């Protein structure tokens, strides 16, 4: 706590903190209110005298109903869920194996490969999306979930590898050595001893990977075309806008509902998520 007069605490702590929290969370509140606000209230210019922005007196579920029944929203949610889970699992598996190899085994190219993987993490998707679209089409993966399930690991694996390497390095070598003397082969020691101990790291990497997958946009935008194949982000962007007309109520409802799975997973695993984020940064 800040020592000193009470006013100092308010000026230097409570007010700034409050301001931050307000600014960071207001848009979500706005999302929620808009999603349940009836159209007549919604489309009222801000200069009109009866503009009452911060609450609504007649909440309605119309927008949500429209979203769930008249659009392919449910399909998009399902698509995104499947793609995210599949991509996360693939990336975790690869990351586990690669992370173990790079942190626990001695071989000639260890340093080089580690750096190479780190560098690929720094290649942004917007640099590769045009040639990658071509490749996806050539492999006959265009407009299928596989286009994303196989390409998302490109930015998930480096992160998972790096994060898990950090966890592996903290496990004493003697545990593996003891296991090997006890009769385990190298791969058995890895599987039965090291991986179970690294479970917190696996959870952190998994959660973070899941949220990153859910958040991805440009690959989904470019590789998928049929409305039924789209992910939530792309679907909401392309299907809830007719020409220049934005269906704001449903848009916000879509934004809200589309965020729920991620927020849900996140809320259960906050500690792991933060551990994942800070683990990556602390190296």
């Amino acid at each position, binding site marked *: 706590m800040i020592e000193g007069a009470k006013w100092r605490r308010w000026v230097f702590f409570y007010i700034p903190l409050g301001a931050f929290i307000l600014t960071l969370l207001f848009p979500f509140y706005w999302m929620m209110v808009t999603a349940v606000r009836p159209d007549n209230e919604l489309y009222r210019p801000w200069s009109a005298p009866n503009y009452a922005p911060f609450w609504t007196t007649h909440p309605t579920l119309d927008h949500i109903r429209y979203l769930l029944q008249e659009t392919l929203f449910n399909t998009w949610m399902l698509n995104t869920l499947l793609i995210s889970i599949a991509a996360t699992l693939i990336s975790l598996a690869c990351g586990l194996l690669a992370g173990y190899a790079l942190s626990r085994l001695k071989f000639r190219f260890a340093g080089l490969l580690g750096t190479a993987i780190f560098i690929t993490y720094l290649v942004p998707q917007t640099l590769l999306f045009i040639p990658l679209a071509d490749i996806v089409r050539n492999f006959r993966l265009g407009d299928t979930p596989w286009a994303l399930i196989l390409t998302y690991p490109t930015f998930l694996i480096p992160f998972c590898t790096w994060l898990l390497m950090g966890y592996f390095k903290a496990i*004493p070598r*003697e545990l593996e*050595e*003891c296991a*090997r*003397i*006890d*009769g*385990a082969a190298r791969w*058995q020691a890895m599987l039965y001893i090291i991986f179970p101990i690294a479970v917190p790291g696996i959870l952190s990497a998994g959660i973070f990977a899941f949220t990153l997958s859910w958040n991805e946009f440009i690959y989904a935008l470019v590789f998928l075309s049929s409305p039924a194949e789209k992910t939530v982000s792309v679907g909401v962007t392309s299907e809830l806008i007719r020409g220049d007309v934005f269906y704001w109520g449903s848009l916000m409802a879509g934004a809200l509902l589309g965020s729920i799975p991620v927020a849900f997973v996140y809320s259960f695993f906050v500690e792991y998520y933060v551990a994942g984020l800070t683990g990556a940064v602390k190296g």
Partner: protein
Amino acid sequence: MARVVVRNLNKMFDGVHAVKNVNLEINDKEFVVLVGPSGCGKTTTLRMVAGLESITSGEILIGDKVVNELPPMDRDIAMVFQNYALYPHMNVYDNMAFGLKMRRFGRAEINARVQAAAEILGIQAQLQRKPRQLSGGQRQRVALGRAIVRHPKVFLFDEPLSNLDAKLRVQMRVEIKKIHDRLGTTAIYVTHDQVEAMTLGDRVVVMRDGVVQQVGEPLELYNAPANRFVAGFIGSPAMNFATVKIVADADGPPWAHSEGIRIKLPAEFADRLRRYVGEEVTLGIRPEDLRVASSSDPTDLAFDALVEVVEKLGSEILLDVRVGPSTMAAAVEPTVQAKVRDQLRLALNPDRLYFFDGVSQAAI
């Protein structure tokens, strides 16, 4: 048969020659201790026997079979680590059963062995607990139990007691000795503590800078050290050393001479040291072989000393004294009355002198 033979063993690490031509023969059922300061190569040697380090050149045989190319899992050995290396995500039972599971033993057999080992070590009540719930001593017992259930050909110990507090260390030392007597398995034990080496080993191997200095039974190393290093390493408090010159006039008896010391060499040493007349050698005297001179002690086997520090231990008194320009330690009877800045005369025991070549440091 579980003999371990090490032949011309060498290990290079990035240009550092860590283990130099080590030769050892460890007999079946023997408890051999490798002892030496950090970096002497003892742990590296042990790890090569275990298969955890590759061998640069030389051979290792376990039970008359060359094991150079065998991975650890096939060498039929068990190891107890300094930090216990207990699997934190398994309970004690599973920790001990792991090795047997890896070798596809049946459940009944596993249970029988684990229970038997737990009984020997007194940890039956801990079998369902996880390592983090155990004390340091209990963890070390589990580590021992894990090694015992395997019925290996050789036990390897890598400084297992270093992490325990002093009292526990003494306790566990005795336990390890008892278990070895009971099981009779060949054991190789690495430590930097010469007390552990002396108390546990049937034979002790002293190493330094990758080279074996001396191999022998504990008392042999104490009474007849092969060189200055072994003499100074074994025994606590450490042996005192002084550089002396051997002088003799004509055919007279040789004397050892340095600033503050003038000693007439006893007969048995006189012959051995005759050829060093005119040269410098190192004189070694153990603190426990010094005593306060009485009137009946010959004057040519004593020297003057100035007391600098008095440490009363109850069973003896340790005196730090200044002899000439250097300091020595003397362990004397607890009845001695000595104060700081007292001038004393210390007498030697003529049977317990050691001399080392000034250049090679080998015992003369």
